[in-house]
Structure formats: structure tokens, C-alpha cells
């Protein structure tokens, strides 16, 4: 458990003043911070750390605090880039995940940069939720005197583009902070713009910071970040891995096509932990690319330039450019390049554009609005293909140098075409022996309890079961004695019970203490995981009171919200409190990392 031990003055060698200040500090520390502080002090006591108390004290006044809220790792990477560049300039930086940040510390910040992504309907990432809520609460402090900048990451194909970043900036400003540089909102193809933002941001802060900072600043990094072991392969330099198996794991009459994918990481040195994700680069559908070339009357062999490189148009469309996920910027650029006046006009109407884009892939737009457009113009109108992240469904303690994924193939008919998801379609076209570029994205906010005896409740309907398969493999291999309770749901028992035989084995062996399933379409009234949670509410609450960690993975828009509502009801009923208290209870679980979500 994470309660702070009482500081007894009589037992310590500190002066009363030191004792008071230390007690104050200790009370604000998160578990991770306590670990760091203890390591830091232990190290300095042995003379290993040259940073004396004086230097540390003077750095306090002139630290650039960088807070990031990251879901897929992008915001974390951008924040890391900023910290690294700041350190190169000799500035003192505190780089902290919002999840590890004590909101009450906010009132003492003078220089602050917020990097935050947006998900679903304008929601902040899980890890930013606590700070986001705090800023809008009555407890939010006066921030006058603080200088802040905000960077948002988002996807312009969604309605509430970068809304979380906008919210953060609005709130900081409302609390009195000075926004010293205009916020920058970055779309999914953000990477080329990061370096410019880093430099311009530091240009703004550097004069202020150096005015009060002695030379030789330090980067204070949280241990969670440091723990992510660097490997040669990353998003910028992915590993070309071999696919070992692609197996459909839904039955023959299922309405869903879910694929179990096994990928070999042999020779890569890549490691991962349960809770991590795998980034996957994919290849667009050759048939769909050729159809686009035909409808636009373009020669695929023509050379085009992409940044610094030159490729044939066909290769660029296959491997480098986004052709599935549509977004407003494309419509605008394409309409302009192709001289499509009506399309350009429609793109002016945000609501109309949004509903136009809702079910259309870029392929659809090109088929519906073919126009004479140059090969390079087309390339320039498209954005770079982004890798897709999948929650890893295996533990290396079980599968060694393999990594397993559970991929739901997106498919639907419309606009006279059969549609497949970009990456999931690629997975379906893949065979054993094919190669695919991958990298590991660490998921610090979705981790098994450190203590193997702590019980877990896992809620993972649909492909949301993936990380729990990893958790179970891990706990099985580790011989962890903690109880495990899995909630799973999907449309039909006979067709859609993902990993059924494995879960039955875990129930037999006792690794799974219990499993409750909700097959929504097997009876007249639809039943979902949240209904099963409610049904067993007393036991769920009992498990939580016994210290269980609670995990939710899967659909963010509805499932995660419905599950949360069910949890509020359960706590309300079985704790005998009001809804607000129940929210606080769950917020407390979240703050102590006992309620973690991986939703998308």
C-alpha cells in the first residue's frame, strides 16, 4: 500500500525546521517520486551526486517544468525532445508525466510547458485526467506570475480537434497564468513541426530562465521515464519483423473478423512489458492503390518527392502516405490542387465536412471526385502514413522473442466500395513470413501491480482482452498468487469468445479466479460488461476494498464511459455514499494507479 509512514521528529536527526519542511514535502510525494527522492538522497549521502544542496536550492527558482499527458506516447516523445534541447542549452528542466504530478504543486510553478494529446470526443488522455479535473475544480490555485505555453497533439479527422490542449490553455489563462507563446496544435503528421516548436519555445523561455539559473543545469527525470530502456529501434527507426502467424480467432459465422497475430522480434533486442503497445507500419492495399491511380489517370511509375527522398508514385502511395483515415486538411488541399470548386466550398462548412468524412476513406473521396491532378500535387495533398498502435497481447516471459497482437479488422461497405482498415486490412492480407515494421511503445499507465499478491479486476470486451492475455501470461509465468477476475464481452458466445480455450485453461488452473462474460446479442436484451459488473457489484467493491487493481481496456467512446458509470453506481451503493464521493473514491484509485485504463 502507498500510505506515507508517519514522520516522527524524535526519531530523526533533522532540525525542527528541516523536519517540518521535509514532512511537508513528503506528504505531497507520489510513490514514484518517493522512490526517486530516496534514491537521490541515498546517492548524494554516499557522495555519488555532485549536486550540492545549494545548487539544488537555487535551481528551484528557475526550472522549466514540462508536463505531458500522453496516451500513445507521442506527447511523451515531444516533451522529451523539448527537455533534451533545453538541457543542451544548459537550462534546468523538470520533465514530469501528468499522472505523477501533484496538482497542488502547480501554484509554485513559474515556467511551465504543457504537452497534451486529445482522444475520443475531445477528452484528455487517462494520465492527464487528474490534472485536467483539478484545473477546473474549486481547488485550482491562482497562477498569476506563471508563464506558460501549450502544445496540443490531435487528429483533425475528429470533431474536437486538440480540445484537451485548448482546455488546458484556457484554464491556465483563466487562473491568471500568462501565455507567452501562441499554442501550437499538431495533427497526426506532426513530426516535421516538432523541431521548430522546440526551438521557438525555448527561445521564449531561455532569457527568463537564465536570468535566475546558474550555469550547469540539470535535468530531473522521473524514474518511470528512465525505466524505458532505450533500444536501437523506435518509431523513427522501426524494426523490420517477420510475421509468424495470422490467425482468425472468431468463428465462421461471426460478424467480426479478429486476427491473432504473432510477430518475431528475434535479433531486434526489443523488449516489452505487459501493458505496452506495438506500433505497426503497414502497406496500403495494392488493389485499392491501383484503382486510385486508374481513376485519377496517373502513371504509378512517375517519380515524386517526399521530403528528401524520391520514389515512384505507386510506392509512395503504398508505403508512405495515408489513404484510409480521412481528415479535413486533405479535402481542402485536394480540392484546391484539383480545382474542385464544389468540394472546396463544402470544405468550408465544418459540420458538413465532418459528416462527409465520417465514413469515407481517402479512397472514397478520390473515387467520388476524380479530377486531373498532378502526381506531385496528389502526394503533397496527402499526409504521411502514421503507424497504428496495438496493445500487446503477450508476455515475453511466456513467448520470449515473439510479440502477439489481437487485431480487429475494420470492414464495412459503402459508397460502392468494400472498405478495410489501413493496418488491419494489411494484417488480413499478410501471411506467415511477411515482414512488417514495428516498434515498442511503452505503456507506463497500464501496469500490473508490483506486488504479485495484489488482486486484479480486468475489464476487456472485444479486442480489449489483448493486454489482459499479456497480464495473465505474465502472472502465470511469475507464479503470482494474486487473484484475477476477468470481464469479457462480445456479440456472440459461439463465435466471438476471443481466446476462449486459453481462458478456460486459466480458469481450470486457478490463475483466473473467475471470469464473467456478456454476449450482447445472445438474448433479446443486450447485455454488456458494465451490466455484469453491476450484477456482481458487491463482490467488485469487496475486491477493491481488498486492494484490487482495476483495469479497463477497449472502446473509449462508449464502453469505458459505461463501465465508469457502473463503477460509480457500485461504489455509491456498496459504500453507501453519494455519486460525488464515489467519483472521489475512483479518483483516489486512479491517483494511486489502482484504476488504469487503456482505451481508444
Amino acid at each position: 500500500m502507498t500510505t506515507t509512514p508517519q514522520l516522527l521528529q524524535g526519531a530523526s536527526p533533522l532540525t525542527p525546521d528541516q523536519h517540518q519542511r521535509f514532512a511537508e514535502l513528503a506528504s505531497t510525494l507520489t510513490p514514484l517520486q518517493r522512490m526517486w527522492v530516496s534514491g537521490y538522497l541515498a546517492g548524494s549521502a554516499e557522495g555519488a551526486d555532485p549536486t550540492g544542496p545549494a545548487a539544488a536550492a537555487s535551481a528551484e527558482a528557475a526550472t522549466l517544468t514540462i508536463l505531458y499527458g500522453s496516451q500513445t506516447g507521442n506527447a511523451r516523445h515531444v516533451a522529451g525532445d523539448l527537455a533534451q534541447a533545453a538541457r543542451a542549452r544548459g537550462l534546468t528542466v523538470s520533465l514530469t508525466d501528468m499522472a505523477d504530478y501533484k496538482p497542488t504543486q502547480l501554484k509554485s510553478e513559474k515556467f511551465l510547458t504543457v504537452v497534451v494529446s486529445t482522444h475520443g470526443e475531445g477528452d484528455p488522455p487517462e494520465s492527464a485526467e487528474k490534472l485536467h479535473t483539478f484545473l477546473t475544480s474549486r481547488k485550482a490555485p491562482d497562477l498569476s506570475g506563471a508563464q506558460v505555453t501549450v502544445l496540443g497533439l490531435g487528429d483533425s479527422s475528429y470533431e474536437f480537434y486538440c480540445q484537451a490542449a485548448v482546455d488546458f490553455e484556457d484554464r491556465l489563462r483563466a487562473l491568471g497564468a500568462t501565455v507567452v507563446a501562441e499554442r501550437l496544435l499538431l495533427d497526426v503528421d506532426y513530426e516535421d513541426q516538432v523541431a521548430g516548436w522546440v526551438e521557438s519555445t525555448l527561445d521564449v523561455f531561455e532569457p527568463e530562465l537564465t536570468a535566475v539559473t546558474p550555469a550547469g543545469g540539470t535535468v530531473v527525470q522521473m524514474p518511470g521515464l528512465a525505466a524505458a530502456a532505450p533500444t536501437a529501434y523506435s518509431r523513427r527507426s522501426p524494426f523490420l519483423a517477420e510475421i509468424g502467424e495470422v490467425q482468425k480467432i472468431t468463428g465462421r459465422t461471426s460478424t467480426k473478423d479478429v486476427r491473432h497475430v504473432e510477430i518475431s522480434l528475434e535479433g531486434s533486442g526489443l523488449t516489452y512489458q505487459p501493458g505496452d503497445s506495438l506500433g505497426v507500419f503497414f502497406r496500403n492495399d495494392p488493389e485499392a492503390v491501383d484503382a486510385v491511380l486508374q481513376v485519377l489517370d496517373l502513371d504509378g511509375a512517375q517519380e515524386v518527392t517526399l521530403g528528401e527522398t524520391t520514389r515512384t508514385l505507386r510506392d509512395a502511395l503504398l508505403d508512405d502516405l495515408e489513404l484510409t483515415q480521412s481528415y479535413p486538411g486533405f479535402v481542402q488541399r485536394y480540392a484546391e490542387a484539383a480545382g474542385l470548386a464544389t468540394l472546396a466550398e463544402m470544405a468550408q462548412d465544418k459540420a458538413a465536412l465532418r459528416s462527409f468524412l465520417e465514413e469515407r476513406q481517402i479512397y472514397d473521396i478520390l473515387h467520388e471526385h476524380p479530377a486531373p491532378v498532378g502526381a506531385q500535387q496528389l502526394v503533397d495533398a496527402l499526409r504521411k502514413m502514421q503507424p497504428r498502435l496495438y496493445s500487446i497481447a503477450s508476455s515475453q516471459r511466456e513467448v520470449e522473442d515473439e510479440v502477439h497482437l489481437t487485431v480487429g479488422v475494420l470492414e464495412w461497405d459503402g459508397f460502392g466500395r468494400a472498405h478495410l482498415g489501413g493496418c488491419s486490412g494489411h494484417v488480413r492480407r499478410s501471411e506467415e513470413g511477411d515482414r512488417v515494421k514495428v516498434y515498442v511503445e511503452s505503456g507506463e499507465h497500464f501496469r500490473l501491480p508490483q506486488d504479485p499478491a495484489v488482486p486484479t479486476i480486468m475489464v476487456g470486451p472485444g479486442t480489449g482482452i489483448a493486454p489482459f492475455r499479456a497480464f495473465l501470461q505474465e502472472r502465470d509465468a511469475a507464479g503470482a498468487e494474486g487473484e484475477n477476475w476477468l470481464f469479457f464481452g462480445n456479440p456472440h458466445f459461439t463465435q466471438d469468445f476471443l481466446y476462449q480455450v486459453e481462458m478456460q485453461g486459466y480458469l481450470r488452473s486457478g490463475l483466473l479466479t473467475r471470469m464473467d462474460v456478456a454476449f450482447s446479442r445472445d438474448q433479446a436484451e443486450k447485455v454488456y460488461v458494465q451490466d455484469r459488473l453491476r450484477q456482481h457489484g458487491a463482490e467488485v467493491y469487496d475486491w477493491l476494498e481488498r486492494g484490487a487493481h482495476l483495469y479497463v481496456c477497449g472502446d473509449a467512446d462508449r464502453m469505458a464511459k459505461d463501465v465508469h458509470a457502473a463503477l460509480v453506481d457500485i461504489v455509491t451503493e456498496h459504500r453507501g455514499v453519494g455519486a460525488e464521493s464515489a467519483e472521489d473514491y475512483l479518483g483516489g484509485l486512479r491517483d494511486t494507479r489502482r484504476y488504469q485504463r487503456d482505451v481508444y
Partner: protein
Amino acid sequence: MPKSQQDAPLIVEGPLSDNERLKRESNYLRGTIAEDLQDQITGGFSPDNFQLIRFHGMYQQDDRDIRAERATQKLEPLINVMLRARVPGGVMTPEQWLAVEDWAEQHTLYGSVRLTTRQTFQFHGVFKPDIKDTHRAINAVGLDSIATAGDVNRNVLCSSNPLESALHAEVHDWSRRISEHLLPRTTAYYEIFLDGEKALSTQEPVLGETYLPRKFKTTVSLPPDNEVDLHANDLNFVGIVEDGALVGWNVLVGGGLAMTHGDTATYPRTADDLGFIPLEHTLAVAEHVVTVQRDWGNRTDRKNAKTKYTLDRVGTDVFKAEVERRAGVTFEPSRPYTFTSRGDRFGWVKGTDGTWHLTVFILNGRVRDEEGRPIKTGLRKIAEVHRGHFRLTANQNLVIAGVPTAQKRTIERIARQHGLVDDTVTPQLRNSMACVSFPTCPLAMAESERFLPGFVAQVEQLLVTHGIPDDHIVLRVSGCPNGCSRAMLAEVGLVGKGPGKYNLHLGGDRIGTRVPKLYRENISPEVILEELDHLIGAWVSGREEGEGFGDFLIRTGVVARVTVSRTDFHA
């Protein structure tokens, strides 16, 4: 002719088979079936309950066609149950027919019922969440599935002879009374499947706490028709009619067809005639044939547990004497009777009460709409207007019984429109039968039901080639050696050995009183047809007037006659 075995033990000592343990521990067939019904992680039952649900008329099965595919999908097999109803004598009302058909269409994997050789119907592909509702649905129309499988007396067969209406009613009533007298008394079925009240105590005066050593089958028949195939059954009441009245029965005991490949201690066997009893002793004799088998049957080896093996071990005379002692009855000498057929009489016949009966051919007993033969729709339309009843026959066909003259034309019209009356069905097809086998039966070794139509077409072609297109051979196919299609009483019996491979048995007779002998082992359908081609040629040129194929093969020494199964069958 008694087969006395001197000094044979009446009770076989030794470690009991595991089924004996689970019956004893089951608390009168309850086990933990109710808990398993609640388990949503699997479509199946735990190992003990897998056995126990049989006593309530269900077999756990799966779609074997996709078993391997589902293993790669990390899914358990497509587990479901087959539910076999209890329909004594095979008599159903039109209301029952409609309810059963509706249910099959809406709540089973295959969307249809199958009529079986035990004069009942089976739902194939009932998934666990629908099990209780299925029992409720048939219960609502007065049907159940109690004791249609497991180590009990199963559905009692009864002649469906449509000519003798008054006698049929009488023997049918006896089949119902025998069925009820021998039913388990436990209320487990009602408690588990119909939410009935839990009984405070249970007694099983007839079947006993651990029920019978093995399955037990009973028939009631009315000569000259042997369509119940009495020699496949443990206990048989052959009706003796004198001066137009049913006066009593010849009781035949110890028939049974199941065997195990490679185990010569197992064999199909015809029943022995114990003698005549008047009607008033019917239930007492039925009860005590069962209790003697209950107490003397071999509970250490399920392959040696049926009544036929008990008779051969203790001697028929010893068994008979014990039944007489327990029942307080002395068997009189057998009275004469003659069987002349065991096929169904297709088409219309008029009963003695003036109503009409239409027997229709149902290929493989499968009530399903096929291209050009929408028989399921046709039967539904008939059931909607029919005021008599239906009789399921032991040959998997159906009698639309008790049609008043005024309605005969209407029924005829519907039947013809839907392929139920089809003049192109050959005598050969009508005398051919197959068990269910793949894809649902877990015991299947080779195809049977799906194999039959194509194979019969080839046999028909042989008959045409040899110039006897209107003749027939009693031909039966079983997917395994357990005998559901009664291949071991056929003139030509095929028993599945492996995929595409069968054992060919020859030499049964047309009326079903002789077991056919193994002729060639483990051969393909092509080889079987070559053999039949040759043998049919010999039959056509050498047969005596009216001589059937099986009788011809015995007379000419092609195969040896099986008289005493224990010594002759594997000789």
C-alpha cells in the same frame, strides 16, 4: 433353446466401471447439471454431467465438420446438445408436431427435427442457453425427454401398423404403460429443467439407486409386422391376437446390436423367446426382466453389460426362472406368430375404424425442405388441418393417421405438392436406412446419413443393370458399430470403420430375425459396389421364387449363417 452356462456367476465381481461411481454420486441423476447450465464460459458440461445429461435425454455433441477449424481459432468446439424426446410408440398430435417444428426452426442449429429409428424425434444443435427453454417448450405440449438415453429403459417402440386401428390403439396403450412403469422416479428432470420443486427424498424401486448397468430397450409389436426390429432390443412383447382380440404376449429377451471393433467378446445378438404371458402380467414381467438385468448385469465392464451378455453368461433358462420367481408368473409355451415384413406400408390404407392412414417416406428421417421436396412445409400445412394424429415409425418415416374420408383429398393434395408422396421413390430407397453420424454424432467413424443417398443411387443402378429395378435389398448403414440404424439386422449392413471405410456384413433376412456376418473388412464404397455387383448378378440368376438377397447368400454358402451369436458371429 436355453443356453445354460454351468457355474457362471450371477454377479460379476470386480472394480466397478466409472459410470457406476458417477451414478451413485449423482444424487439420483442430479449431479451438478444445474450449476453447469449457469456456466457461461463453456457450451458444454463437466465430465460427470456429460454422462448424466443423457439420462435426461441429451447428448453433448459438436459440429465435427468444423472441430479442427475452431481449434485453430482458439475456440472450443461448437458444442451443443442433441435432445431426444420420449414419444412412446411414436404417437404425436398435430399440435405437438407444430410446436416441435416451430421450436426446431427457431432454436436449433440445424433448424429441423430428425425422426429416428426409435420412433421419436431429435433436436440437433441446441445450445446451452436454450436447453431449459427447449424442455419447457416440449413440456408445454405434453412431451418430455426423460430416460431416452443413459442406463435406463428408453423410449418404448410400438408397431405403427395402420391397418388394425383398434388393436393399434391397444398395443400403443401398453407401450405407454410399460414406458411409464419403467421410468425413473427421480424428479431431477423437473427440478433441473422445469424449475420444479425439489423432492425431499427419492426412491427407485425398479431401476435402483445406480440405475441399470447399461442402456435397455423395449418394444411392443403386432405380427405380422416387425418394423420395430425386435431383435435389436432387450425386452420385447410380441402381441398374440386370437379371434380378433389381443390376449397376451410372447416375451423375447436379450436382443441387441452394438459391438466394438476388434473386441470379439462383443457381438450383435437376436433375442430369445421366454414364452407366452397373458396381458395381466405385462407390467410385472416388464419390471422383473429389468430388475434381474439390474442385479445380474455386469457393472464392471460396460462393453459386457447389456442383457444379451447377461443371458449368455448365466443362461437364458436361469434368467427366465429368476424372472418367473420375482414376478410370480410362469411363462406358458410360446404361441405361434409370423412376421412377414418390417418395412413401412407407404401410401394410403384404410383402418378398421374407417379412417385413412397415409405413410410417407422421409429420407433419413430428416424433416427438412429440400429443392423440389419442401416436406417440412408440407407437414406443417398438414398438421394445421389434420384432425387425427401422427405416428413416427421405427424406420424413420411418418404416418399421417386417422384421416376421415372427407379430408383425404386435401391431405393427399398437400402431400403431393410438397414431395411427401413421390412415386419416384424406389423400393430400394424405401428399404435403406442410415444413422445420423457426421457431423453431429461424437461416435461417428464414417459418414452415414450424408453417404446414404448417393450410395443407394448406385445400388439402384446395379438393380437396373441386373434387370430388377423394382426389387430391393434391405440395406443399412451405421457410422460406427453401435448400431443406431440396425445394420446388424440388414441383408447388407455397412458399419463405419474410418473415413470412407466400412465393414461389409451380409446375410441378414428381410424380416429381421438373423444377424448378418462379416464378409469383408475396412473397404471403400467402390469395392463394396464391386462386390454387390457380382453378388446381385448371382442372386438374380440363381434365386428361388421370392428368395431375398440375404437368404440366397446363406443358402448358397457365400456367408455362413449366424445362429448363436456368441460362437458364430466372429467364427
